[in-house]
């Protein structure tokens, strides 16, 4: 059975959902609403595309589009740092594999991480926990 849960914490949102792209869209919308509500000085476009990349990657490559497998996402903002953690129930990346791919070639694959880094997110992979961690310095919008 498909499920979608979101919990609000003091500084962010925690999501748990079945592998479905509809839920990816819903999670992106919820996260954008959160940063808008907090008046954070971050491009909604950059955040939306970044979340689409990392969450879709978890559904497709991590969970192999298996709706019985879940995606877990935490987004929180504290001390001017926005953190996004995404975990799936897949096997994870082989040891030594890099998240980064080359951009600029006309190959229709492998652009996601280049896009995320192009938006100035610091991206890392915690292999023992199978977590993709994104960090970006974000202050409250001055206006």
């Amino acid at each position, binding site marked *: 059975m498909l499920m979608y849960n979101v919990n609000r914490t003091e500084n962010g949102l925690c999501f748990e959902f079945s592998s479905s*792209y509809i839920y990816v869209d819903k999670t992106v919308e919820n996260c954008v609403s959160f940063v808008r509500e907090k008046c954070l000085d971050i491009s909604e476009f950059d955040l939306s*595309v970044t979340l689409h990349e990392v969450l879709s990657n978890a559904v*497709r490559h991590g969970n192999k589009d298996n709706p019985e497998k879940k995606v877990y996402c935490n987004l929180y903002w504290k001390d001017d740092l926005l953190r996004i953690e995404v975990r799936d129930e897949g096997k994870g990346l082989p040891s030594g594999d890099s998240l980064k791919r080359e*951009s600029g070639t006309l190959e229709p694959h492998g652009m996601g991480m*280049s*896009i995320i880094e*192009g938006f100035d997110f610091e991206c890392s992979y915690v292999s023992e926990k199978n977590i993709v961690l994104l960090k970006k310095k974000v202050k409250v919008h001055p206006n």
Partner: protein
Amino acid sequence: MSQTITVQPDYNITVSSSDVLKDELLRHIREGAEHIVVDFSQVKIIDSTGLSVLISTHNTIKDKHPLELVNVSDDIKRLLAITRLDKHFQVN
């Protein structure tokens, strides 16, 4: 004579919707389109899956005419620059 087709998606082109655009573009290619214009006036977001659809289309028709994107927002132009796809597509 080159046949020009304009496609105007009225949705964001992400993994959940990119197949719709892919099917439409493939249909036009099968029907003989040699110059394809994608009008982005109603597209706010495109992700790497959507970009992949554009790349595949471009690679199919580029010998006749590069894929042309029009009414592209500044945000999407920035994304095309990050991925260096602006060097391949005709972006207006």
